């Protein structure tokens, strides 16, 4: 008996399904309403100003864009690294990567001062701008993922899905490098200007993306009544643990490097000790909720066996991820720029002062609208196309399950 994974679209006729889609749709509409307020009035209705120029929308947008490339990682593990168990997880992974990039870009674009000039952004490219590189990387990612999904779904093209997956994997590494470099190449501010930000963003994308994927997979299987075996959950959970540990390492190295240079002591003291909300966000949000607690859960002897706890750990990684974006993006701007080293500086334009920032409801609304778009796209797509496997039971997924010859079973599961 050869167990084979079949995919099918979810039925999607229940009240719960339409309720879910309706909720996402409503949140998306509210987000677009927030955009209307912001763009109609101008950015004075937001908490942003001439000092904190990137606010809450960027926290959401950058989080979603790096998470998008991380979500695709689940598929890459199958296609690039040949892990058969991940193969049935690939379609949903690619779909969600696409949806989250769309959501993130929606937020980024609609926060522009002139979103009506999108065509200009696409047609006038300054080759030296990291932003312009990203403007090329985003559609490339969409195209790579679309082709990849097509090759996975179309039997005749299956043979090329490995190549398509490899291409998408390389592209997503470039994409996250580009995202990290938006900050890493900013020489003016103590909080940025670090090449390590690019690889750090890649590692963060692994973590955020996997956490989002685990929660979505659990929800999809549960709500559509499909079996999700322990072996899949266990594997994903273990991988999440490795990614959290890697994130922890990068955060540690980033601040250690920064601390070594005296010029950065002021900034480090601000983030680590006396920065108020940023210090709290760093320690409580990023380190404790985003790293230590989920790490403890996924390696805890009994908690790690509970799906509820694994779900909670994944949610914590997402919350910590948003906190990390807040610390990096807002904290990096709130701390005064070193324009006159060695002097105490004051002016009518906030020189030498920590700038306060209170996000407005419109900015948060836009961010949530972006997440709603990604989730609505996913919810809709799994109804119209076969993205989700009929079953991810241990029988199908676990090579050791009733299988006398593991290698053979693995190959067949693919």
């Amino acid at each position, binding site marked *: 008996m050869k167990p084979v994974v079949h995919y099918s679209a979810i039925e999607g006729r229940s009240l719960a399904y339409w309720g879910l889609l309706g909720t996402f749709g409503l949140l998306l509409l509210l987000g677009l309403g927030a955009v209307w307020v912001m763009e109609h009035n101008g950015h*004075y209705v937001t908490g942003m100003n001439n000092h904190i120029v990137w606010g809450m929308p960027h926290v959401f947008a950058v989080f979603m864009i790096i998470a998008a490339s991380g979500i695709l990682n689940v598929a890459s593990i199958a296609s690039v690294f040949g892990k058969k168990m991940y193969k049935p997880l690939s379609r949903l992974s690619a779909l969600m990567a696409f949806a989250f990039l769309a959501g993130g870009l929606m937020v980024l674009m609609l926060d522009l001062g002139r979103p009506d000039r*999108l065509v200009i952004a696409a047609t006038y*490219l300054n080759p030296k701008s990291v932003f312009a590189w990203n403007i090329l990387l985003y559609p490339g990612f969409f195209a790579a993922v679309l082709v990849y999904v097509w090759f996975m779904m179309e039997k005749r093209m299956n043979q090329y899905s490995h190549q398509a997956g490899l291409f998408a994997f390389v592209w997503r590494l470039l994409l996250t490098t580009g995202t990290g470099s938006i900050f890493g190449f900013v020489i003016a501010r103590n909080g940025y200007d670090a090449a390590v930000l690019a690889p750090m963003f890649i590692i963060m994308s692994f973590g955020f993306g996997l956490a989002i994927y685990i929660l979505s997979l659990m929800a999809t299987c549960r709500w559509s009544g499909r079996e999700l075996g322990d072996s899949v959950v266990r594997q994903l959970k273990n991988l999440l643990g490795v990614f959290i540990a890697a994130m922890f390492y990068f955060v540690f190295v980033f601040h250690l490097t920064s601390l070594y240079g005296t010029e950065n002591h002021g900034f480090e003291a601000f983030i680590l000790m006396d920065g108020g909300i940023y210090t709290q966000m760093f320690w409580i949000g990023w380190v404790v909720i985003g790293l230590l607690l989920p790490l403890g859960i996924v390696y805890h002897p009994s908690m790690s066996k509970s799906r509820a706890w694994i779900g909670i750990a994944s949610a914590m990684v997402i919350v910590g991820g948003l906190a990390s974006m807040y610390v990096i993006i807002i904290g990096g701007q709130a701390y005064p720029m070193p324009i006159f080293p060695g002097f105490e500086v004051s002016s009518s334009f906030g020189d030498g002062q920590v700038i306060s920032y209170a996000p407005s409801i419109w900015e948060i609304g836009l961010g949530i609208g972006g997440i709603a778009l990604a989730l609505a796209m996913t919810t809709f797509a799994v109804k119209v196309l076969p993205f989700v496997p009929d079953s991810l039971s241990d029988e199908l997924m676990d090579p050791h399950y009733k299988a006398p010859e593991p290698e053979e079973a693995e190959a067949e599961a693919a």
Partner: protein
Amino acid sequence: MSDQKIDQYRREFLGKTSAAAATGAIAPGVMLMSVGQAQARPLDEAVSSANRWGLLIDSNKCADGCSDCVKACESENAWGSGSSDEQKSDAAQKAQWIRTVTLKNKLTEKEHQLPMMCQHCEHPPCVDVCPTGASFKRADGIVLVDKHICIGCRYCMMACPYKARSFIHEELNDQAPDVPRGKGTVESCTLCVHKIDRGDGSTACADACQHKAIIFGDLNDPNSEIAQEMKKHATTQIRADLNLNTGVRYRGI
């Protein structure tokens, strides 16, 4: 600009263009030489890298509490008190093209102040990062924003080491004819480019400074006052470590 000045400019412009048309028909090579010596640059002539416009600011002369340069800039370029706009924006959201900064020596507690504005870098980070090329540097060293292609992404504001740029947070209606500004785009000191192009030979801030703390001029012209002063005295660039070769130089920091 007074009516008299406009007339004078028109006369010069018409005179030059008709002369150019005539010489253009007879001897094309001669025209370049004759126009090169003119004060005001005709609108159809490209900006030349032969000039590098800049400012020299002597913070020793900059009087504590004085903000004449800021007020002059506001009225010349119609921002801040020079315009009825930006009533809805809060203090941190309002545009600020030029500001006075007070520096206090941490050891000696000696205080002095100086005006800060766009430093018109030779290698401007704002131009590097701008995705559309809206942020650009003219051949004569003036760093500007093309309001037609600025998408309002604010990346230039993230990248500028001098915090010289402002974003417009609301609708504007009270702009000066020579100074384009608009909601959702970024702006900064233009080095009074409209004054330079019409041959005024100065900026509003330099004109307004009674203490002669601001000198405007051509850094490339060894005979200009600014070049002569910089030859005589030690000057510094703010954040010289970034190697941006700023067009605005300081004395006394």
